[in-house]
């Protein structure tokens, strides 16, 4: 039973990491990073380190994504809109264009 929970958490962590590098939306990547931190906290508890789980909850699932969001919010006022930076072969632009919102906020 222990190993089943362990492997399920490992699968979730690796899936969240794949989401971090596959999403072309920067805010989405930050949210996937936060999900990875949360699941990693559960994995730390499973591996018998509750103090590390405390630190990982505060740091990995809240502080670091908030830092990223602050950085994105500061960059967005400086850099003109170039959303698909560094993503060569993506064709799933329809997923993000599906929101179809009016306004200049882009993916906010």
């Amino acid at each position, binding site marked *: *039973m*222990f190993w*089943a*929970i362990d492997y*399920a*958490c490992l*699968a*979730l962590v690796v*899936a*969240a990491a794949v*989401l971090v590098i*596959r*999403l072309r*939306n920067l*805010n*989405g990547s930050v*949210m*996937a990073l*936060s*999900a990875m931190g*949360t*699941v990693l*906290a*559960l994995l730390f*508890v*499973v591996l018998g380190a*509750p103090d590390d*789980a*405390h630190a990982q*909850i*505060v740091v990995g*699932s*809240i502080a670091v*994504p*908030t830092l990223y*969001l*602050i950085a994105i*919010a*500061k960059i967005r006022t400086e850099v003109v809109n170039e959303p698909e930076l560094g993503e060569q072969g993506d064709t799933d632009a329809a*997923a*993000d264009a*599906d*929101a179809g*919102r009016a306004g200049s906020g882009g*993916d*906010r």
Partner: protein
Amino acid sequence: MTLAIGVACLAEVVIGALLLIRVGLGPTVCDRIVALNTLSTQITLAVLLFAAFADRATYLDVSIWLASFSYLATIVWSRYLERGLL
């Protein structure tokens, strides 16, 4: 009884996998924050159930931290969506 609690803990993790699909798939950031909030709740319950499964009361404090701080994160991020963080 320990086995039942362990199976419930595993079920919460599997529900987290369902929510992770929505984190990857959500068209807007609000969808992702909704899925992330629910994922935090499920992980809180999973930590509680794992504490009962491993019979260590020390693990329970992690779930209290998670329950209090994940909502803080949700509120901060919705404020970021509404007005910008700076």
